[in-house]
Structures are given as C-alpha cells and as structure tokens.
C-alpha cells in the first residue's frame, strides 16, 4: 500500500458532497441542475478555498483539469494512471452517460437485498471546507475511509438511474489497487499528455492479464487429522497473497480474482501457489485496456483450465495414500514415531524395522508402552509422500471432532460460484434498470456487462453472510457441538438426524436476510451442501459430495440417498416435511429401501391406507423436487 505514496483511492472523494446544496452547481428557476455536478472540485480552484495543490491527493482529484495539472504537476504521470485506474474500476463494462436517462439516485441500491440507501451526501458549505482542509493534510486513505465511512458505503459510485448499484467505497478501493498495478506504465510515457481523453487513448492498447484462480488440494482427506489441509491451504494462500495485495481484486474462500500488469507476473503468482503442492482451476486471459472498458468480467476471463506442477508420467509403488499424486516414500505413523526424541533408541529402531501390523506392545520397553498406546490402536499403516506426511505431522488436532465417539454428524458447506454469480447479478441489474430508468438505450439490457465493483461489493457481503451463518449455527447447536474447519465448512454433532432440518432452516433464514432478492432467481450462486452420516464415517465421502456443489441446496445421507431442493421453495418444503407423520415417513422410507419405484406407486395410490397422511408429502413434489429427494428428506425428518 505504501509502496507508491500517491493514492488513487481519493479520486472521487468529491462525490461525498452535495454540490447543489452547497451552491456550487448551477440550477434553473425550478432548482433543477443545468450543469454537471462539479465533484472533481473544479469550482474550488480559487484561493478562497485554500486547496493546497502540493498535497499529492489533489493530483488525483484534479485529473480532468489541464490548467491545474500543467501548473502544479507538469512532469507527473500519476494523474494519467489514476484516470486509467478509474476507468478500469468503474469499467469492465462502463455504460455510457446517454444509455440510461432519468432522475439521479445518489443513494446506493443493493441488487441482492433490494434496499436503497438514502442520499448520504454532505450538504453544508462548512462540510466542504472541512473536507478540503482535511485533504490538505494529506491523510491516509484509511483515515479518510474511517472518517467518512458511512457516506462512502451509502453513496453510489454513479448516480445515474439504474446504475447506482455499487458503492463509492468499493469503487475507490478498486481504483487504488488498479493504480498500483498500472504503476509500471509510468516509465513508458514517451510524450506529455494533456487531457483525460488523451490519457485513455494513450494506453488503450496496453494489455493486462486477468486471472481467476481456485486453489484445490490433491489430498483426499480421509481421516480427521488430514483435515488440517484446509487450514494449511488457507494459511499458504494468505501468505502468498500478502505479496500480491494490490493485484487481488476479489477473494473469497480459496478463490481469487486478480489483475496483473504482465502475463509473466500472473504466471509467477500461479507458480508460487502450485509450488506449495496445490492444484489450480485457472481462468486467465490477456486483454487490452480498451476491451476491458467495454466488456464484463466474465468475458474478460478465459476458459477454465486445470493446472498443477509438473507430474511424472510414471510413479513407482507405493502411491501416496493421501494425494495419490506422488510416490509414497514415508510410512505413517511409523516414521513419525521413529523420530520422536522421547522414545528410547531401542523402541525407535524396533518401530522403524518392524512392519506395522507385526508390532506387539509387549515387545516394547515398559517405559515407552504408555507413550505409544494411543498410536498402536492404528490398525494399519499408510504410505505417504513427503508433503502429505508433513501436513499430517503438523496438523492441529480437531479436538471436538476427535472426541465425538458415536452418534450422527452433519457436514455443512457453503460455496459461491462466480459464473452463476455474474449471471444472477446481471438478471437483478436488468430488472432494476427497467424499474428505475425513464429511457434506456435499445439493446443495452441484452447483454449487460457485470461490473467489477459489483462483484467486489457482493463478495464483501458474502463474507458477512458466512460469519453470520457460522455464528447462528454455533448459537443454535452450542460451541461443543460444532467443529469449524474454515469459514465455509462446519461439522455439527446432532442428537437426532432430524436436527439437520434446523441447519436448512438457518441457511434459509440467513439467505432471506442477506440476499433476499437471490431467493427469487432460478439460479443459485450461493450453494449449500449438507452431508449426514455416523460420526466416524470418513470425511472423503462427504467431501466428494460437497467439494463443488452444483445445486442451490443439496443433501446427502450416507447410505440414505440424496436430495436437491430449490432455494425459493425451501421454506415451504421444510414446513411441509416438518409436519409429516413420522410413522408414515418411516414406512415410505422402508418401502423405498426395497424399491423406489414401488414407493412412488404407494405414494400416489389413493387406496393406500396412509393416503391421507401422504397428502402432506405429495404437496412437496410440485415444488420442483424429485421423488428421490422427497424420500431422502423423509429419511431426515423421520430420524
């Protein structure tokens, strides 16, 4: 952040002022503005306003004023880069002024909640004077963001009707990052640039690299202790990302949307991740600035590709039991125990030289028996590669999960799908523009680009959604009954399987609260996967189901089927299934165990003895659920 002292975040700070209210925007007799809002402080350049042009912040603000630039920053190119960053941050699909016409909306409208902020701008002349005085002191962006936080988060980046869908804060932060990404361009300015439009033209053909990376691990976590791979991945990625702070535009979970000045820089970033032993799903594209201004993010990104470090064509047995992608040259747990200093040399040699299943506790010295008792319960040894061995050796124990000996657990995972998110935001935005603008350019809505600040804003709210979700689950089930693996993945110990319905209800409630407009869509960017089993069931089987959820709400009961529930019907379905007669649910499930086809016939049979009781269940089928899903839900509700 401090690598380049100039801070592009300030370029639109004038938007927090109501220029008409302070008397600096001319109006007609009816009070309607007859000129553009002077939010670039163009009416504050006279001495009475006491702008200290030496404070670097002002160069970003006055980037459209050639005289001021010529007088105060004649040899600087910072304002040019700010202009490019501004276009990029607003762009990846900036819409021209004349495309939508109607009354300006200064308050931010949130597409996913449907809530509009009231106009938060400062309306007094003294507010403007205070702002100028504050900026003259050259404050850090953090200080400004703190002081004007509420306004920055409520003021729309653009006030054009239907386009007031991202906050000034998101836009400013993005512009700041992009400015620093573009900073190498400073050295390529070969002629003086005097106007904003010239600045854009000068670099229109400059290529940048856009990257979307999902970091996966090759390990197939089978045992509780292998779940440390989740935390390890998070820590490794955070460490690497801290070196690319400005390139990262959006991050959620193990997914990163980033922009690089060159392809080489992007490749180095990917290599840094892969060198840690991870795999990546990569979408990467080199694209000219002028194209970036006119297309949405989904078009800017390339096709998804799987990426890994170099893999050998052949491996000698044994294959690593953890990742199955390398030679398993370490024995678990024998090699770990053989390195323990607290064991006698005799014991360590014995462990090293004896096949695991032939180890006998009575062959160990008395002093070491207690230390090894827990380990000797391991019923088999595993061959691991060095990476998996290291991961498992360093694993922090998941104490709650390890202590649960019997009963049922539900693994719950929430995941965000970028591709579907872009589609969903587009749908919501089209609807909003139609509702807000008086006049819309023909064809504008046909393929409306989704803008970067919009995605960034959604992801910020998604992070809050995740925090609220985990907090609610902890509150509902109690600290001792919830093991949190990471922000998107929880394991809940259930007294009864039926309690899974509570997890579904919590998800529905928080979705309705955080993303109510998403509930009406037929696509689901935020996906919820639940997998239920006895507590000691291997995690691998859960993860296989939850790793890349494909439906809005998916449920797997190990040995008991799967269910897919449409999100917009979740409430009604939970209501109906919750009222179902448990004896009838049990009967239906038992029939389905023999034959699902028979169960389907029985459910539809009007002569059946439980026909009346089945009616509640039958109401669920028109909600877009398959019969198999219904049986799975019946299975949950009965337990």
């Amino acid at each position: 952040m401090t690598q380049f002292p100039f801070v592009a975040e300030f370029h639109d700070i004038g938007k927090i002022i109501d220029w008409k209210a302070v008397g600096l925007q001319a109006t007609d007799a009816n009070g309607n503005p007859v000129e553009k809002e002077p939010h670039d402080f163009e009416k504050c350049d006279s001495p009475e306003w006491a702008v200290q042009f030496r404070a670097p912040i002002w160069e970003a603000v006055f980037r459209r004023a050639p005289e001021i630039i010529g007088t105060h920053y004649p040899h600087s190119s910072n304002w040019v880069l700010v202009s490019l960053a501004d276009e990029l941050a607003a762009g990846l699909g900036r819409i021209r002024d004349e495309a939508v016409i109607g009354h300006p909306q200064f308050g931010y409208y949130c597409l996913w909640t449907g809530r509009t902020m009231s106009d938060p701008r400062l309306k007094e002349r003294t507010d403007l004077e205070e702002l100028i005085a504050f900026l003259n002191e050259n404050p850090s962006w953090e200080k400004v963001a703190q002081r004007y936080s509420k306004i920055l988060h409520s003021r729309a980046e653009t006030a054009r009707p239907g386009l007031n869908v991202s906050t000034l804060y998101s836009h400013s932060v993005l512009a700041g990052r992009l400015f620093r990404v573009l900073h190498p361009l400073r050295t390529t300015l070969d002629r003086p640039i005097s106007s904003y439009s010239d600045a854009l033209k000068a670099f229109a053909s400059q290529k940048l690299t856009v990257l979307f990376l999902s970091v996966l691990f090759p390990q197939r976590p089978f045992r509780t202790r292998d779940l440390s791979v989740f935390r390890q991945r998070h820590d490794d990625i955070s460490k690497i990302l801290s070196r690319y702070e400005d390139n990262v535009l959006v991050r959620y979970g193990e997914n990163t949307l980033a922009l690089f000045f060159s392809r080489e820089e992007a490749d180095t970033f990917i290599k840094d991740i892969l060198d840690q032993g991870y795999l990546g799903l990569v979408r990467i594209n080199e694209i000219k600035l002028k194209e970036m201004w006119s297309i949405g993010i989904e078009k800017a990104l390339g096709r998804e590709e799987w990426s890994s470090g170099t893999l050998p064509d052949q491996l000698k047995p044994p294959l690593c039991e953890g990742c199955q992608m390398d030679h398993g040259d370490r024995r678990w747990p024998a090699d770990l125990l053989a390195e323990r200093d607290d064991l006698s040399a005799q014991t360590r040699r014995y462990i090293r030289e004896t096949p695991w299943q032939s180890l006998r506790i009575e062959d160990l010295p008395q002093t070491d028996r207690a230390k090894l008792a827990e380990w000797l319960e391991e019923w088999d040894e595993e061959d691991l590669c060095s990476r998996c061995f290291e991961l498992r050796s360093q694993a922090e124990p998941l104490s709650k999960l390890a202590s649960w000996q019997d009963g049922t657990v539900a693994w719950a995972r929430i995941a965000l799908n970028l591709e579907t998110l872009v589609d969903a935001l587009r749908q919501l935005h089209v609807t909003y523009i139609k509702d807000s603008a008086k006049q819309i350019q023909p064809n504008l809505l046909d393929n409306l680009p989704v803008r970067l600040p919009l995605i960034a804003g959604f992801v910020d709210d998604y992070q809050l959604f995740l925090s609220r979700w985990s907090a609610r689950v902890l509150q509902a089930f109690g600290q001792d009954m919830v093991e949190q693996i990471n922000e998107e993945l929880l394991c809940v110990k259930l007294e009864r399987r039926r309690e899974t319905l509570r997890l579904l209800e919590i998800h529905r409630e928080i979705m309705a609260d955080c993303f109510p407009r998403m509930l009406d869509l037929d696509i689901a960017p935020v996906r919820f996967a639940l997998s239920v089993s006895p507590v000691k069931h291997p995690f691998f089987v859960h993860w296989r189901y939850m790793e890349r959820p494909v439906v809005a709400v998916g449920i797997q009961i190990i040995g008991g089927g799967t269910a897919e529930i449409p999100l917009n019907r979740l409430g009604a379905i939970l209501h109906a299934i919750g009222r179902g007669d448990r004896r009838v649910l049990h009967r239906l499930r038992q029939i389905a165990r023999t034959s699902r086809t028979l169960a389907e016939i029985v459910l539809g049979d009007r002569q059946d003895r439980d026909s009346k009781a089945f009616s509640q269940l039958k109401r669920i089928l028109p909600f877009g659920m398959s019969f198999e899903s219904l049986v799975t839900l019946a299975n949950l509700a009965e337990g």
Partner: protein
Amino acid sequence: MKKIRSGHTFLHYELMAETLCLGERLRGGLFRPCARVFRYSTLVGALKAHFELSSPIQATARFLPGGPDTNRMEILSFGPLDRGRGLSEVPLEIEYLSNVNAEVFILKTGETVHWPRRFSLSMGAMKSKGFGRCQLNFKDEVSCQTPAIGELCVRLPDVESIREVFGIRNVLAPVYGYLFRPTSPTSGVYVKSLFEGSRVVGYDILLTRREAGQ
C-alpha cells in the same frame, strides 16, 4: 500430438450386474468407497482375465441413466474373517453399486470381433463375495469418426497409444490422477492418467452422455 487416423469401430455391449464394487484406491480406513466411473485398468483387466489374453485390448465403459432403482449406491457392512487366526476382524463398510446398467465399448480387432454375443465376467472388488458378476450383451457396432468436445466419464491412461484409439485429439482441461499398470504378475507402475471431469476433444463414447449430445 500424433494425427488421429480416420476412425475406429467399437463393439458396443450392454453391461448389467446386480452389484459392482469399483473400489477407490484408498486404504487405511474401515470404509471402502466405490468410484462413480469405470477405470480403464479395471475394465481391460477384467476382459483380459476373462478371455485369457496377453495381447493388448482397448475398452471403455460408462453408466447409463435409468430409473430410480438403477445404479444405486449402497453400503454393505462386512466382517472379514482372519482364517489363519480364526478371528473376525474389524467390520468394514463397503460401498457398491446395485442394479448396474452400463455400456461397454471394445475396440474391434481381429480378435475381439470373434467374441461371443453374450458373456459373463467378473469385475472390480469383492469378487470372491459374489460382487461384480457382469452380464454383457452385444448391441451393435459403433463407428467413431469425429471427436467431440466434452467431459470424460472414465479414467484412462494419458498415453499416446490410448489417446489415439479413443480419438483424443486435445486435452482442454485435464484432471490428472494415476492408474496402476501391471508390468508382471507381481509388480507394476502407476501411470499418469486422465480422470473423470477432464475436458477433452475425443470420441463421444468417452464423454458424459449429457455433454455428448450437446
């Protein structure tokens, strides 16, 4: 990459089995998961064992969509007996597919063209317990000429000779893993392989049916 020759013909069989356990290569646990796709090594191994062949054959297979009772994933609890010590070991849970309905494509060669129209073979894990008894019925011959873009629904070695047979012209987005290839009755190596989900340009018979039709 070598140029694909003009096309191949495959013998198309329907495969049915009451139970089939395509064990994932995971050990060290009491639960033995079943793969959701066929492995080239399992399929070719079973065919070679059945016909007692030493020469190479090429085959692929995929599950067919069916009714709610088709290709159902089930779990069996099983207490293996250590006959040497006369003791029951810790019970295992074994995942398997029941009421299996799939299709198998075997490369037509001078040898395979003479194979019977109907035959049974054993495939996968737990064969000694009666799992994996498969009935294969010949349906027709399928001529593959033009590769299509889609997602692999099988695991097969990423080697030139196999790519050529199955018309894999290009791997757009690979998902790699390793499959065992025996080099003698007691040894073998793991070969880099393309796993399900890989996006390839290849013959339709390798691709998930949904995508193949698009």
